């Protein structure tokens, strides 16, 4: 099998706060193949956005990447220079953010912001760039693209802004797209439209996507595999179908129980008791132990490591033993 497009190993990112060091991303492993969509799921604050920023090396003071490797097409991004990273960003790896109103510069026109990308990455200049811009807007389903090119972000609706952002992101033909909650700020109909658009892009361009979301509906419809994150760590990883049919980790199960099921009004919604741990002073054992309905004594004493449970499945929980093997890698305690 060919080498995966993205392989993250033991990625750790820390923030220094006035109360202490906060391990926002704590030994995270991820893999994405070409053309594959991996969903990174979790509650707010679990570290999924920071993971994305770390992959792009956009983490700034007071945060810093503390360790690990990020292999992109055979090269470790963490060892690259800033200049090399700049070439990659917006080029082979693109990122779209959550709120399109705040992510587009309000004082620059759409044209300016699209053409800028094209020029920086050497795709087109001047008039050719403008023409390409119009093409991209049309490809994203924006009507009257030629006129829209001269608009400013505040003149566009939320859905259109998101399309513009996608247009900018795919303008330089990236191989990997990191989408950080691309639909959270949109209403339901728009969500569907944008996700359709993403699906089309994925098809047409064989785009690999790291989809960050807390919306399980999108996860099921759209991704190939999913990784569940809790308190800075990956607690379960599996192909989407398997994850939804047969969730292993108590947290994943808890998440699924929070989601209403169509046609089954009889199944009660049960929230997960408790709240996320204080990241600056973490409990000694498993981070989910305080809220886990199936907690055991050993859970509180030492944190479990991520272990394999079959092809493409892994889970971080003492309820399971590695399928026959002891291939569990060290997780941070």
């Amino acid at each position, binding site marked *: 099998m060919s080498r995966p497009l993205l392989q993250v190993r033991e990625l750790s990112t820390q923030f220094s706060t006035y109360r202490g060091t906060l391990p926002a991303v704590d030994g995270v492993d991820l893999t994405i193949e070409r053309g594959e969509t991996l969903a990174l799921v979790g509650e707010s604050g679990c570290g999924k956005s920071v993971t994305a920023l770390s992959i792009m090396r956009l983490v700034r003071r007071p945060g810093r990447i503390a360790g690990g490797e990020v292999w992109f097409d055979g090269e470790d991004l963490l060892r690259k220079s800033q200049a090399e990273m*700049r070439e*990659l*960003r917006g080029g082979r790896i693109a990122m779209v953010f*959550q709120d399109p109103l*705040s*992510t587009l510069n309000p*004082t620059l026109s759409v044209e300016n912001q699209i053409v800028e990308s094209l020029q*920086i990455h050497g795709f087109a200049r001047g008039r050719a760039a403008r023409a390409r811009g119009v093409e991209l807007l049309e490809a994203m389903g924006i009507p009257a693209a030629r006129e829209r090119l001269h608009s400013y972000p*505040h003149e566009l609706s939320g859905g259109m802004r998101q399309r513009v952002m996608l247009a900018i992101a795919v303008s330089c033909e990236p191989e990997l797209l990191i989408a950080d909650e691309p639909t959270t700020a949109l209403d339901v109909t728009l969500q569907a439209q944008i996700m359709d658009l993403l699906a089309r892009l994925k098809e047409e361009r064989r785009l690999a996507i790291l989809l960050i979301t807390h919306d399980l509906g999108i996860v099921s419809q759209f991704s190939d595999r999913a990784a569940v994150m809790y308190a800075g760590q990956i607690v379960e990883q599996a192909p989407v179908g398997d994850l939804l049919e047969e969730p292993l980790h108590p947290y994943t199960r808890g998440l699924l129980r929070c989601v209403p099921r169509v046609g089954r009004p009889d199944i009660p919604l049960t929230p997960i008791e408790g709240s996320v741990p204080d990241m600056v002073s973490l409990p000694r054992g498993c981070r989910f132990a305080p809220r886990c309905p199936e907690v055991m004594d050993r859970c509180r004493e030492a944190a479990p490591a991520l272990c394999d449970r079959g092809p493409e499945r892994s889970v971080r929980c003492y309820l399971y033993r590695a399928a026959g093997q002891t291939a569990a890698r060290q997780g941070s305690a």
Partner: protein
Amino acid sequence: MWGRFFGQRLLQLIPVLLGVSFIVFLTMHLTPGDPIEHMLGQAGRITQEQIDELRAHYGLDRPLAVQYGLFLRNAAAGNFGPSYSHQGRDVGVVVAARLPATLELTLFAFVIAILFAIPAGVIASLRPQGAFDRTATVAALLGISVPGFWLGIVLMIIFGLRLGWLPISGRIQLGLAPPPVTGLNTLDALLAGNAAALWSTVKHLVLPGLAMAAPMAAMVMRMVRSSMIGVLAQDYIQFARAKGLPEMTVVGKHALRNALIPTVNIVALQTGLLLSGNMIIETVFQYPGLGKLAVDAIAAADYPLVQAVVLIYAVSYVLLNLGADALHAVLDPRVRAA
């Protein structure tokens, strides 16, 4: 759109001008100084008849309301009458002679202030609480705490007298003045290809210019710094970096445009201070501009001259604010829609 924009604001100019002229008129006329006495001060023995004659000649014996009415009518035609303290020369002429000097000095001060303050503010914002930021903040605090007249004097002492590098009064070395085309010595010297004149002018501009620029630079720097810090924390800056743009572009193009918006507003609001500062500095440095003219005119109770100068200041203030509004609209497309 621009027509409406300017039209509206120019209309607002009128009530302001009226109000200002009224206040000045009232103040000058209600205060006990007598322009006639000032005028005749050095003339030796004068009879009461001569005084009354002069008074009638200048219309100072008419009731206030009439005087104000006459003043307005004449002012609208651009005629401010004769200047009492300048041997009856037409006020318009006196003012026109001094206006370019102040214009030159103010522009100079403005340019120095901006050239220094904006980059300083940007650099300070890149690393808050860092060494540069702390130094800049202290400097800015000093800039707004120092009394302008004293700064002028200290500059005079250090650079003018102790070190002897720069002149401490006047506009240009005697005899070097280039043929007046625009009235701005720098431009005129350039036009005449006269390097010595240019050099002399610049040397005379430095000390008063610095004294005038200091408080303004301090304020602009602080404003730029704090806006930049706010802007750099915005999502669109992160997105710009995610596009692979070099940091200089991110800061200089994406961030600065947004940060300049509130800065422009603040600067506009402080133009009143700039004008006051101008009067003081010109007095300290004996710089032959409008500011000094105004101070002297008020002391001499030269009503027409004071009226004219005040009106010019008021117009400048409104125009500067207009310019700031326009600049705001250029920088921020969200405003243009309104």
